[in-house]
């Protein structure tokens, strides 16, 4: 199904903190700025709740890129950002083990009014995915190999 895949668009999942990235995404909306429609944002209190396998599972389900927009030093949760960073680090290792390009997963600190960084993140992830292709192909390729 060559034709089908060529019209297929990579899917980007954004995990965004309510106090940071999600509010930032709302702010981008209030300013009526544009970004790619393949980006879906899920609000989370703090991404530290997700363990490594959550991300791996997501890729396996067909999500091509994940941006974790956490609150960084602005986080209202003690220890949350550090733990998030650690989990993401661990995830990178697991991704490598599974032959997944680690560029599919990004961690970025986005504040409530960070409209430019937000757009930049989405744009860069799209560029990356254009370059490295669909996760399914990568997983399939690995499987074949």
């Amino acid at each position, binding site marked *: 199904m060559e034709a089908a895949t060529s019209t*297929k668009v990579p*899917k980007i*999942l954004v995990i965004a903190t*309510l*106090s940071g990235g999600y*509010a930032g*995404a*709302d*702010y*981008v*909306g*209030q300013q*009526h*700025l*544009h*970004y790619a*429609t*393949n980006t*879906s*944002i*899920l*609000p*989370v*209190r*703090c991404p*530290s*709740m*997700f*363990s490594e396998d*959550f991300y791996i*599972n*997501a890729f396996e*389900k*067909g*999500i091509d890129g994940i941006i974790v927009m956490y*609150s960084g*030093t*602005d*986080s*209202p*949760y*003690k*220890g*949350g950002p550090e*733990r998030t960073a650690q*989990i993401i680090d661990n995830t990178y290792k697991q991704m490598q083990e599974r032959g997944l390009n680690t560029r599919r997963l990004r961690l970025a600190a986005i*504040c*409530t*009014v960070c409209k430019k960084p937000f757009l930049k993140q989405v744009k860069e992830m799209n560029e990356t995915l254009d370059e490295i292709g669909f996760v399914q192909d990568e997983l399939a390729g690995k499987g074949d190999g």
Partner: protein
Amino acid sequence: MTETSDLKNEEIKIGVYTCYCGGNISDVVKCEKVADALREMPNVVVSRTNMAMCSDVGQSIIEEDIKSKGLNRVIVGACAPSLHEQTFRGTVSRAGLNPYLYHHVGLREQNSWVHGNNPGEATKKAIRLMLAGLAKARLLKPLDAIKLEAEVHALVIGGGVAGLRSAYDIARRGIRVTLIEKTPFLGGRMAQLETVFPTNNQAREDLHDLIEKVTQHPNITLYTSAEMVGYGGYIGNYEVQIRQQSRGVSGDIAEAALAACTQEIPDEFNYGLTKRKVIYRAYEGCYPSDPAVDWEHYDGKPLDIDGKEVVFENTIKTFDLKVGAIVMATGFNPYEPPKGDYGYGELPEVVTLPQFIRYMGFRESSDELTWNGRPVRDIAVIHCVGSRHVAGVHDPQPDGILNNYCSRVCCTAALHQVNELREEFPQLNVYDFYNDIRTYGLEHEAYYKEASQNMVRFLRFHVDERPEVAAAPAGDTHPVLVKGKDYLTNGLEIEAAVDLVILAVGIIPNPVPELVDLMKIPVGDDRFLLEVHPKLRPVETPVPGVVLAGTAQSPMNIQESCNAASAAAAKVSALLAKGQVILEPFVAKVDLEKCDGTGKCVEVCEYEDAIAVKTITIDGKEVQRAVVTPANCSGCGNCVSACPNKAVEVQGWEVAQFEAMVEALAMEVEA
């Protein structure tokens, strides 16, 4: 608990509602298609659209559906959850459904408003987001909100007019208030004004009436020279730490110390136009009336008082307070132009409006206006200094931010000052360089007209052709020339020869990086503290129980500051009057069957006494299990990912729900 198990057996019936949002969504997204797509999905009993789901009519539809169709889950796709999630929780709750069986999907800020250029894909994305919402909805569980005793005590940060007004209003509602002011004196920026529009009253007289009410109110405790240095807890139960510096001098020796002090520094009350001693009163009649030592500048040398050598010591007191809510009334600073801008800091004849107001306050009255010993006959006023900056024309500030906002008060304040000048010195000529005159209030336009009648010559510049201020060539009649194109005279090149240039500078927020950092209050593009929504929750911050009062939020005049402060007081009163706050139940919950007491969760938790491994009895056996204290849990979820048994969840934000949502988002949809 029984409710939960009941639901397990119950068939899941979901109502799905897609809001047009009065066009905000439907102008881009084909809402009917979204509704159609969702209607076909398992568990969906009803799928509808409405012009405004949040309206009474829209809400009634949901209530009616819950009652008549037996819905036990509801999702609405509408604006951002921060705006109306609470509204719909209320709706389903009125219809007898647990409010946490509601899920809100944002289709506006994160879809129609960002994909207006691509309606087809936006509709597809809306379907995807709604499907994800549906996936979560299937896994929703009923939850009970956490009710906690609230500390009936508010902290007001800032002793300017907004802080005072707010403290007074809260106190009058029978709530204890602690007011802290960073400097040794109350009054803030308002104290530095002379007469104020639109009443022409003396600012300090109005202010002192209010200060008197505040200081005499039994519910208010006042700390000057005090700052908030520690912060913790949550709405209704904040634990803050206050650090107060001592006044240094007291009672009987105060006057003698004041007299004996010789060390001088520029007086910030007069914006550096004069000097003051390091033991000082901010101004005549200030409150508290006792002088204070300026510890930052005091050189520590002994003073000779009544023949005794006295050294003053700053004994810093730190203490904890429990408060239920916090009012941010941290105020503003006048914009200070960079050196050389409009000749500021280079030509002695260039001053800012606040400086000039101070000058008029402290100068000795005479029949002639003088500046630097020279008589002043001609004055230029330049508007929008530090405001309404445009990229490419103005440079950003040192922090990289462009002051692109209007400072709201400068037009009327400048014209008010000019009118007073002209009345006192009828021989003065005034040239007013403006872009737009923004005397917007009911009684403000009168100041503009009065200025015209006072023979003020208005000259209009274009924002990209700012007037230039330069020293006049030797031999000119005046020391300074202001040159520019006048777009009231077809862009004619004009020049005004003047003795004094007054810059109507804008307002920038008083920077409070430490507080912002501590409390995690968002700051807007313009550096002002950011409210949740300008109309829905105009004085509230996203931090529950932390509200904004006055110019910390945006430029405002005194009237608007006081209104905002009173509004903040109303929110605090509504919050604390009942003595109880209701918290969202989004806290960790341990599945006792899965937990085997490894304690991994406790290791990663940074909240004291939020989760602990305790010995409990299950089926007559004593076992080690993790136990959550909901009031102390922040709901961050550190413990969730740490648990090797996946025994912990954050209620309402369960990993399984996220996994279901991710699955839905990964599906291809047709639209």
